[in-house]
């Protein structure tokens, strides 16, 4: 179980001389991912998904709020003490090409964390080899052929599986998959998604899936939660299928409307929403963050920031003063 309350992250981009620019990457985000559960973060490029994922995986510090793993608050711990907790959360990188050291064989890549794990848990060294084969089998690779290879001798999909296997070596409780399939061939993407789902079911590992493609979020598990993030703020949050079927925040609606329609198989939604402008980081922070781009904005939106809550308009949490259900997504054509 990992929870966060009011997590804030500000990047200070140091100008070469005097000027310093601040980027509010996260503005008080709450999340809770139960053991064995699933969650997906979606949002436009630059809205803070990766930052949040990295904070959850312990790879990035945060400036405010609270992150707790299994009830233990990370804020008060020293970096060294945090390590054992964050071990439970492993990150799967977007780019399987750079996530593996090109100078080390898969065997070497797996051996290092396994021997660490063996030491931690007091297992004998002989356990390591067996475990290496095991994790590779778990991710659907043939240990005999893969172990002695160098990363460049594997395809993208295989590499991503190795990356997942490496994460499994330390017995994680949660995997953070940041755009884990975006660099993999289309025909193979689903395989990786299925693998993640499979690991969830078989090992009880929870999965945090970060993507800007809403459709893939479904494939991690239908019991998962969806977090729609916009400019460092969660604007809508709830069960995946609920949000896909009945989004109430105009931003979520824009995201869903943008998904290409498979003409011939699908028919477009009735009320697609198109934002007015494109994302601009330097827009003012006053009022609703989405107000400037929102086709439905009202006076109030530009002065007051809506909070994430549940209203009678929808069962999921949303941060909008005027939530309204709109049918935006494409539907399969009835044949």
């Amino acid at each position, binding site marked *: 179980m990992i929870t966060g309350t009011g997590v804030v992250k500000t990047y200070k981009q140091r*100008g*070469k*001389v*005097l*000027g310093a620019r601040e980027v509010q990457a996260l503005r008080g985000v709450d999340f809770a991912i139960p053991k064995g559960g699933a969650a997906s973060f979606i949002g436009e490029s630059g809205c803070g998904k990766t930052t949040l994922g990295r904070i959850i995986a312990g790879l990035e510090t945060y400036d405010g709020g609270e992150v707790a793993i299994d009830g233990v608050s990370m804020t008060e711990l020293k970096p060294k003490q945090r390590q054992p907790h964050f071990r439970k959360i492993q990150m799967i990188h977007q780019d399987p090409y750079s996530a593996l050291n090109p100078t080390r064989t898969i065997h070497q890549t797996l051996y290092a964390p396994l021997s660490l794990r063996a030491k931690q848990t007091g297992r004998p060294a002989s356990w390591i080899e067996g475990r290496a084969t095991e994790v590779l089998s778990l991710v659907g690779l043939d240990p005999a052929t893969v172990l002695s290879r160098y990363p460049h001798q594997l395809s993208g999909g295989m590499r991503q599986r190795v990356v997942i296997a490496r994460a499994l070596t330390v017995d994680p409780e949660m995997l953070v998959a940041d755009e884990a399939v975006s660099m993999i061939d289309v025909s193979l993407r689903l395989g990786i998604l299925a693998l993640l789902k499979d690991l969830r079911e078989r090992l009880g590992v929870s999965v945090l899936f970060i993507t800007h493609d809403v459709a893939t979020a479904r494939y991690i598990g239908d019991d998962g939660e969806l977090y729609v993030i916009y400019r460092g703020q969660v604007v809508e949050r709830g069960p995946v299928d609920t949000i896909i079927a009945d989004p109430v925040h105009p931003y979520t609606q824009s995201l869903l409307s943008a998904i290409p329609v498979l003409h011939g198989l699908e028919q477009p939604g009735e009320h697609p929403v198109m934002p007015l402008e494109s994302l601009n980081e330097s827009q003012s922070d006053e009022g609703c963050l989405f107000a400037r781009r929102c086709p439905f904005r009202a006076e109030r939106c530009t002065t007051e920031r809506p909070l994430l809550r549940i209203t009678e308009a929808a069962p999921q949490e949303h941060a909008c003063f005027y939530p309204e259900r709109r049918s935006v997504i494409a539907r399969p054509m009835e044949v």
Partner: protein
Amino acid sequence: MTIIARRLVGHLARGIVMILVVATISFFIVRSIPGDPVAANVQKLIEQGMAPQAAEQATRVLYGFQPSGSLWHQYTDYMLGLLHFNLGQSVTHAGAPVTGVLLEAAKWTVLPVLAGTVLSFLVGIVMGVYAAIRRNGKLGDLLAISGSLLHGVPQYVLGLLLSAIFATLIPILPADGPVDILFDPGFNAGYLGSLVQHAVLPVATYALAAYGGWILAMKSSVVTVLGDDFILAAELRGMKRSIIFRYIARNAILPLFTILALSLGLLLGGAVFIERIFNYPGLGLLLIESITMRDYALMGGAFLLITASIIVANIVADLFYSVIDPRVRSGEEVSA
């Protein structure tokens, strides 16, 4: 514009701190040099037949130009003097302010260094482009290897070889100073001709020594730019070859300009060998002279000037970069 101004301010601040630090370092190094120049001068005068006591007096007069007092006192005086560009008095050039002696020498270093660098830069760039285009051919290989070799060979080896060939074996070029005295200084053909004639060997050495670096840098820069998408894009838009060439050239040369400014600064420091070999009366020669004569003030001054010029070159390089590269101009960081 403000970004350039801000960079300038920042650089200047850092440059000044740097110069102060270097001045401090050089002050203390120079003061800790062993060897007693006073005794040496007395001995020299005695060996020339002067009576010992008279030799002592003569030496005392000569070394009266040296600062005295406690080390700390000397240091503060030195640093205060520095603020007025006063680097003290030279002993060998008795009583002459170090600044004046340095400036006189500096012009003889700057001119050939500048000429040699610009020459090698131009030739190196053209050959570098060629080597990049022909990088898979024999000729390109040859250019690259010869470039690495020239880049690798130290200046003095080239200088000695050139001197042996053109001043000794086939003595067609002078290696004896900057200009023939018989010509009235000024803008007359004789004087300028003599100036050029005397500069040929040192300039050629600078140029040869630097050329290898340019060809290598330009080659790799061009190869990088050639792989950039916008070049192919321009081609696919049907841009004229000449325009595409200009695109390549400008993008490839840009990073070299920084190196150019830096190398100018560094060459000032490297002038020692060439000036010694060709007897060119610049800063390098002055530095050696000041060291063998134990002229503390001059030594510190020459060292400081060379370092300061490098710092200035750094600043100029960076500012220049900011002016010509729009990415820097607008404050975006570009790793050069």
